């Protein structure tokens, strides 16, 4: 055994460093994978969208149904995201600053949407508000439309996106502890003042980061929204659903044009995210997590 080990120049390199060949292979695999699975599709989206020229591309985007899908998507996001900001702040505040029974259960529950299939997330609302549900007669009597309408879309989106803000804030708040709050209280600040002047500013960049991820997901969500939408063209179709419909109708330019808008939004999100990580990385919980 001794001569076998003797051939390796142990003293010349760090213990975790691999040989040049291994390193090159690993890097190559990663690059090829990224190119094939992420960059190629992205380029293809734009290539397909512009296949019949810029004129057809913008024509497809000006289609009333496409515009309505964009409007609906933004409306859903604008309603769902603020709700999740409030929920995320409340939950992370409670988890990070107080000790109570069932805390771990709450943390697991917050993660639930990550582990549940989006279809189930949509189906929950169908079971709750659908025509065979217990609530159905009451809803009909009061002429309240939840499924196949904006409320259903918002609910499904909220369910799917609610971990994003909380997930971002909890580790950071836990790490910061409660001494800053104690200091503020000892100086005579009220609970609300402490929150506005101390707690919130301490997590502001993590909050922006969480909101960004939450918004991106809210705009891009397909599965859960698909279940509750009803696919009424020009009325309950969000952008991802509209892309699917157009594609199934062989309207490729239209489908890829709308898809390119989604892709652009994703790229903008990625850009802001990169800036945040570069500028405020030390104030982001995910900076520690990764």
């Amino acid at each position: 055994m001794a001569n076998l080990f003797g051939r390796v120049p142990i003293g010349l390199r760090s213990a975790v460093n691999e040989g040049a060949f291994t390193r090159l292979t690993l890097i190559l695999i990663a690059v090829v994978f990224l190119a094939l699975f992420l960059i190629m599709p992205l380029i293809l989206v734009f290539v397909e969208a512009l296949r019949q020229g810029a004129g057809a591309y913008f024509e497809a985007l000006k289609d009333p149904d496409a515009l309505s899908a964009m409007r609906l998507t933004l409306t859903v996001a604008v309603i769902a995201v603020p709700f999740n900001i409030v929920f995320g702040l409340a939950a992370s505040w409670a988890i990070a600053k107080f000790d109570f029974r069932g805390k771990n259960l709450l943390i697991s529950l917050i993660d639930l949407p990550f582990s549940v299939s989006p279809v189930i997330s949509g189906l929950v609302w169908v079971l709750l508000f659908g025509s065979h549900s217990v609530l159905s007669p009451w809803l009909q009597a009061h002429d309240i439309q939840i499924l196949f309408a904006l409320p259903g879309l918002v609910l499904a989106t909220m369910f799917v996106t609610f971990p994003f803000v909380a997930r971002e804030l909890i580790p950071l708040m836990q790490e910061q502890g409660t001494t800053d709050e104690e200091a503020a209280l000892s100086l005579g600040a009220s609970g609300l003042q402490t929150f506005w002047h101390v707690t919130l500013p301490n997590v502001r960049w993590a909050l922006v980061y969480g909101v960004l991820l939450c918004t991106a997901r809210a705009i891009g969500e397909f599965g859960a929204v698909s279940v509750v939408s009803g696919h009424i063209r020009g009325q309950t179709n969000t952008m991802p659903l509209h892309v699917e419909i157009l594609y199934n109708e062989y309207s490729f330019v239209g489908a890829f044009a709308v898809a390119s808008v989604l892709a652009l939004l994703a790229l903008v999100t990625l850009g802001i995210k990169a800036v945040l990580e570069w500028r405020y990385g030390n104030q982001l919980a995910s900076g520690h997590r990764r």
Partner: protein
Amino acid sequence: MQISIRNITKQFDRFPALGGVSLEIGSGELVALLGPSGSGKTTLLRSIAGLEHPSSGQILFDGEDVSNLSVGERRIGFAFQSYALFRHMTVLNNVGFGLKVRPRKTRPSRAEIRERALELLDLVQLGGLENRFPSQLSGGQRQRVALARALAIEPRVLLLDEPFGALDAKVRKELRRWLRQLHDRLGLTTIFVTHDQEEALELADRVVVMNKGEIEQAGPPVEVYDDPATAFVSEFLGTVNTFQTTLSDGIAEVLGTDFPVADADIGEGPQRRHGPAIAYVRTHEIELLSRERAEGIPAIVRAVFPFGGSVRVELAVEGYDTPIQAEVPRAFFEAGEVRVNSGLFVRATNARVFPQYN
């Protein structure tokens, strides 16, 4: 302001942090709560502040029961060990925070808050740094900002949790002297927590030694140092040698000399006068004698540390398992008597003897 602490207890989950602590603190006094970690000193300080709520007992400020007042209502100035400065605010806004959050009726104008904060920054010798952020300050500067911030609300008492804990030795000594001067100038009742005996003895008017959630002894520094009431205080203060010995009619022999048992009344009935005992002898209470005098007990020098005004010597003495530590004047060392492996005689000039109850 005068503070009365009456029979405070505090339970953390089943583990008692404070077991019935009573203490009177006079107006303008500078008091140190001294003890090892887990002795309950910080819990006591936080209880006075209102950051912790005792399980039972009362806390009175100038005779008024404040036990049910929140931390904000007690008007205390609290300085945290980690400073807890608001990192997104400038030094000026940190100091002005306590005034800014006052209800509109009592809140000074923006200009007045600014002026007051600048005054306080001058007081803590940080004039000119008002626009810095906490991250741009040194540890000592941060601590002084934290003090200025606490003073801004015109507190009735200043409570400091390990005020110098996170600083290096030199800054620590400077800041200690500075805090003493500040206290003398402001005349504010001040209580600080420390595990550093030197800090407590040098800075405080009165030292409260705590152990296992109870007060072992409270008194002026000279008193607790020279006249420790309990075995714990003897062992905790100063550098001591510990000897196992035996009492017979209230007398115990330590290094060949007889000492009487300490006359401490620890509230457990009359002191025992016979049986196992423990004796504490400070390093400077060990006398080294040259060979010719032949008094005391023979010893062999094992190591010498000639740094500073006195020289520390480690000696092996027959019949004692652990080496004995002695501190002798430098002149004695320079006379050439003390060398490694040289033979000497040792004697105890003083010893505090406590019966052993367990």
